[in-house]
């Protein structure tokens, strides 16, 4: 111990010597000494300093047996360790299980290390890293790191980091004495949803030894925090609802156009969605190196495959049942059973794992305590994109014109020279293709298995009925609003009851408006 202290105190000859001395002094039993040595290392600019601290934090810092060389060890599969010199970074070969002795760390030290590493990170070039560092310091709660923040605050140029720094300083100020600083900090943190703020405010509010003014301010701030959290909760629920709604729209929109044009419910629609999801899986299996782009490949692939399967269904079954919608419903149900079982035999009855590309994982933080996952966000915009594309096809192309004509009056359209059989095929292919695309999106949110599509047919039909048959805007509004309503009922009544309530609501809704929200204009008594 005396030796270690001596090493610490002796004037360093050069930066390198100081560094190696400090690292060597980590080899001690006393946690207090380890702690001060770590602080010393953290203050150095030596390139290995960060590595050593990280290794210490993760428990990979050892001393080599029968020597006082401090090493970084990584465990080998067959037992034993591969050693690297902590100071120089040169490889020292492999040793057995007992060839190295761990430099133990306790929780207090770990906390300190996290803060120290973060403090070093404060000076990183990348501003994202700096923000993370600030966050780590806040979580560590180490008041001794506060000066680091203050000094960084003076140098910092980046606005986002400045904001994070200010927030962090306020959080530290919450702990300071009884004075005006504390009061100001409390007032400033009334809109800060950082979890530490709430704990600290709660502590202050319940601490009887404190000034009543401060406690009152803390209570007030807590109330404001509560209100803010509630607001965010509502925004978040709304977003979840939109996300669910966008999935419903994706699933229902294909059904909507086939039902609108042909008056046919395709019960295999859910299975076409499932096929789309499986296409994503297959694409990822075929091109394992480009997972990042797999979705971009899967979308057109799924559109084509599902579209072709849809056209095959139309040619082989539906065209023979023209004018018999109930029989079509049964026959397509049969097709859905066959498709399900085919997938079960081809792949497996178990769920398949579909990977999420890097750019879709993670979440977008809008404000402290309010974040939105990227996959849901992208899928929402994707649904809008698909909707816009479909709208464009229906409003601006020859096919769209013919589709609308057949939807409004089939025999009149035929009389005008539109080949309605061709329109049927194209519409069915288009609807099925969009189902496939919906499947790609769904593969990013739920498990991909043979039963994936089953649950969507009733839901999609509800959306179509609610919005009005053959009306794209109706489907969009209906899908999004059903999604939002569902998510708002869910926390109150539970997921199952929410579903039942929505079903009942739609059953009652049809009583009032049998043709949906946006009925097609026409004078037909019967279809």
């Amino acid at each position, binding site marked *: 111990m005396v030796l270690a202290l001596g090493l610490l105190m002796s004037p360093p000859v050069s930066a390198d010597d100081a560094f190696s001395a400090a690292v060597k002094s980590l080899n001690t039993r006393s946690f207090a000494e380890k702690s001060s040595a770590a602080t010393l290392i953290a203050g150095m600019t030596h390139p290995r300093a960060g590595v050593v601290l990280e290794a210490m934090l993760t428990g990979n810092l050892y001393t080599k047996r029968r020597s006082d060389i401090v090493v970084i060890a990584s465990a080998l599969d067959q037992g034993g360790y591969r050693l690297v010199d902590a100071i120089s970074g040169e490889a020292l070969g492999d040793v057995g299980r007992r060839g190295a002795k761990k430099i133990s760390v306790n929780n207090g030290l770990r906390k300190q290390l996290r803060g120290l590493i973060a403090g070093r990170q404060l000076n990183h070039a990348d501003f994202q890293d700096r923000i993370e560092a600030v966050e780590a310091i806040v979580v560590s709660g180490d008041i001794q790191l506060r000066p680091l923040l203050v000094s960084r605050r003076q140098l910092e140029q980046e606005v986002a980091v400045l904001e994070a720094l200010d927030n962090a300083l306020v959080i530290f100020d919450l702990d300071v004495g009884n004075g005006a600083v504390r009061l100001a900090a409390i007032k400033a943190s009334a809109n800060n949803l950082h979890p530490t703020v709430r704990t600290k405010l709660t502590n202050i509010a319940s601490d009887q030894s404190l000034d009543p003014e401060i406690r009152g301010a803390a209570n007030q701030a807590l109330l404001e925090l509560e209100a803010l959290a509630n607001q965010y909760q509502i925004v978040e629920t709304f977003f979840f609802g939109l996300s669910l709604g966008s999935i419903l729209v994706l699933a229902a929109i294909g059904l909507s156009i086939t039902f609108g044009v042909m*008056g046919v*419910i395709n019960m295999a629609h859910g299975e076409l969605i499932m096929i789309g999801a499986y296409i994503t899986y297959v694409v990822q299996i075929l091109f394992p190196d480009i997972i990042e782009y797999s979705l971009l490949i899967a979308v057109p692939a799924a559109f084509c495959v599902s579209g072709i399967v849809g056209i095959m269904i139309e040619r082989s*079954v539906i065209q*023979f*049942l023209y004018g*018999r*919608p*109930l*029989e*079509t*419903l*049964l*026959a397509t*149900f*049969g*097709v*859905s*059973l*066959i498709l*399900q*079982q*085919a997938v*079960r*035999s081809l792949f497996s009855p178990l769920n398949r794992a579909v990977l999420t590309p890097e750019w879709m994982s993670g979440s977008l933080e809008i404000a402290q305590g309010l974040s939105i996952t990227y996959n849901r966000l992208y899928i929402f915009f994707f649904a809008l994109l698909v909707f816009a594309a479909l709208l464009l096809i229906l409003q601006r192309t020859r096919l769209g014109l013919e589709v609308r004509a057949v939807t409004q009056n089939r025999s009149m359209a035929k009389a005008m020279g539109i080949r309605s059989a061709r329109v049927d095929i194209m519409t069915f292919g288009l609807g099925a293709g969009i189902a496939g695309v919906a499947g790609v999106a769904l593969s990013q949110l739920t498990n991909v298995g043979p039963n994936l599509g089953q649950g969507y047919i*009733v839901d999609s*039909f*509800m959306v179509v*009925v609610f919005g009005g048959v053959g009306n794209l805007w109706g489907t969009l509004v209906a899908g999004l609003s059903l999604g939002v309503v569902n998510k708002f009922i869910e926390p109150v009544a539970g997921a*199952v009851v929410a*579903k*039942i309530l929505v*079903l*009942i609501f*739609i*059953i*009652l809704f*049809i*009583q*009032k408006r*049998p043709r949906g929200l946006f009925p097609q204009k026409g004078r037909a*008594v*019967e*279809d």
Partner: protein
Amino acid sequence: MLVSRLLDHERGGWAFLAVLLAAIVVVPFANLMVPESSVFHLSTYTVTLLGKYLCYALLAIALDLVWGYCGILSLGHGAFFALGGYAMGMYLMRQVGSRGVYGHPELPDFMVFLDWESLPWYWLGFDQFWFAMLMVMFVPGLLAFVFGWLAFRSRVSGVYLSIMTQALTYALMLAFFRNEMGFGGNNGLTDFKDILGASLQADTTRVLLFVSSAVALATGYLLCRYIVTSKLGRVVTAVRDAEARTRFIGYQVELYQVWIFTVSAVIAGIAGALYVPQVGIINPSEFQPLNSIELVVWVALGGRGTLYGAALGAGLVNYFKTVLTGALPEVWLFVLGALFVVVTVLLPKGVVGMWNQLTNRESNGQ
């Protein structure tokens, strides 16, 4: 005589009743009297299996009444079947008494397990057989009445109605899966001991249940015949063929539809009630949309609008199901799916329709 009036020009119907009557005589004899070593002995397992088919047949007839004669394709008839089954199951649960695993004198095992203090109000009265039987008919009937009233009054028809009924059974399935509902949640009601004091495991009880099912099927068939041959039945058929025209003539179409839908649901409920003591369990999977839609294919295969054809279809499909799921389980769904397609595309009138066409062509040829 009433029966002969009902079955005027219905050779198939006569044959159907004859087969049922023969089964009522032969099956008990072959099970109880013929020694087990004999080739003619019917095992109790087979008797129960046949009894199960009879319940399915009754359910199929109930669906045929609404689909074949009124043109209402219900994809939720399994719900009425299951509700009847649950009513019966509740009676059977109450009969278990203190013989359950936890030995509670009144509460069924699952309630004890969930720490319930007392029976919920809707379980009261189910210890009485007559009350349970009343509920077997009342509950499905009421649901069908309310649903039908709402749906038909606002002229929901065709595929809209079909999907609504499917949503109905789907919603009920979700609801019955919940433990809070008080119907045993996921596991449903099971471990029954006896019915009307007779052990459910005894051969005689099994045979009696079989006979009851056969009698119920025959009665149900004759009742449906009575309905469809009555003046009301003619109106119902008219609704199927030309709803708007019937309305314009001055009939209140929705009343006929609600009425026939409710009667059909009651028959389905009775079928469920006979089914449960024979299979020994009722759980929410009976509400699965797939079950209801499978039922539609029985009727379609047999031939809709013939009643006995529906019963025949139920027997055929379920026999194949039993054989195939035993031998090649993964093939069954392919077969069922293909059956849907083939029947709707190639056999729109079902087996009975095809048979009639063939025999007619022969007689025309002569």
